[in-house]
């Protein structure tokens, strides 16, 4: 069962306990978040060793900043993703590199692509796996021009101006495609589309 709110409720309980210094709660949160965050790092960096380094930095930062998580800003997962992406971008800028340009569909050269871990409660794991499948289906259901713009924005470090230039499209069109696509991605935002 895909239930983003239910998943977030579990994450929130864990991060609140982690903020109080409970390492056991943080360990559970790690189990819940590590696979997608690692896959994200690997997709954006293209290097398993660097992905591990950045992921370690990200989780240490999550631990240190657990008390600063603000539910009004985003879900725990969204907050963790944002923090991790910032770490990836910081790492590459320190080394004077641009992010590997994500080409949609290039999973063939991803050496670490595997089925998600089965750690944790079985039912909860199934729930998260179904949520991931739901996200992938919604992304695939988008019109190709919306999906392309969103994937470039999220998995590369291009600005919206650079995306427009790269795709040879007007800036306004790119912004509209990103907006419409992202709105469709989020369950419950149908009234905006």
């Amino acid at each position: 069962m895909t239930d983003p709110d239910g998943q977030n409720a579990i994450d929130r309980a864990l991060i609140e306990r982690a903020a109080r210094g409970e390492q056991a709660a943080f360990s559970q949160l790690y189990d819940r978040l590590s696979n997608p965050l690692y896959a994200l790092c690997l997709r954006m960096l293209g290097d398993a060793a660097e992905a591990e380094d950045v992921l370690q930095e990200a989780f240490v930062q999550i631990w240190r900043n657990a008390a600063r998580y603000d539910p009004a800003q985003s879900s725990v997962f969204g907050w963790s993703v944002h923090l991790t992406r910032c770490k990836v971008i910081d790492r590459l800028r320190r080394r004077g590199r641009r992010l590997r340009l994500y080409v949609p569909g290039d999973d063939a050269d991803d050496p670490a692509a595997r089925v998600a871990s089965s750690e944790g409660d079985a039912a909860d794991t199934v729930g998260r796996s179904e949520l991931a499948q739901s996200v992938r289906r919604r992304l695939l259901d988008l019109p190709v021009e919306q999906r392309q713009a969103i994937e470039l924005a999220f998995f590369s470090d291009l600005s919206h101006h650079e995306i427009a230039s790269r795709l040879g499209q007007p800036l306004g069109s790119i912004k509209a495609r990103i907006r419409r696509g992202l709105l469709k991605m989020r369950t419950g935002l149908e009234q905006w589309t």
Partner: protein
Amino acid sequence: MIDEELQDQAALYALGILSAGEAEAFERALAADAELATLARELRDAAGDLARVPEGTAPPALKARVLGEIAGARRAGPPVWLPWALAACLALCCGVLGIQQSRLRQQLLAASEADPLPQVAIYSLSGPDASAPGGRITVAWAPGCQRGRVQITGVPAAAPGKDYQLWAVDAEHPAPINAGIVRVDNQGCANVDFQPGTRAPHVQAFAISLEPLGGSSQKTGPILFSGKD
């Protein structure tokens, strides 16, 4: 109903691809519009969901390293007495002006039950001129265990859409090191433990700048307070 241009900005903001100036302008709009703030939160979560698309499994050994680093940080220095010793130290700093640093260090040494004893440096931060916000800010920093505490009294809350962010100025790093955002309560007070994301063995000063809500990976806003030990 939110106009399409603001919806566009909300989507770009959620993906983190607005320029610093565009993000700042959007955050001002966010602070003034609850409906827009709700939409921005939903879009940020939608953007976050994109991280579920790639498949992969974190290496099993990585978990042990993460938990080990956290546990190691907790065990570094004298964790049992440092928090209250720092609090005692800061209470003295904030309550009595002109306390000698050597006297503070003597008090910390006397309070310690650990061996060896780490150094604790005290930094009093002030504004560059009369235009800076009022209040008192003191940072206690233990370079040996790379942890510190910042205590703030009488500082007004940051403007809507902004956050105060603490930076460590270290001799070995050309750019200030992020030490986290600091938010004051309704009385303008804060008492926050911090641990910079990058090792800072030779901190020369601490500073607080005004950054976009949620902070910045690099200092972008004006310095409001700074101080050396």
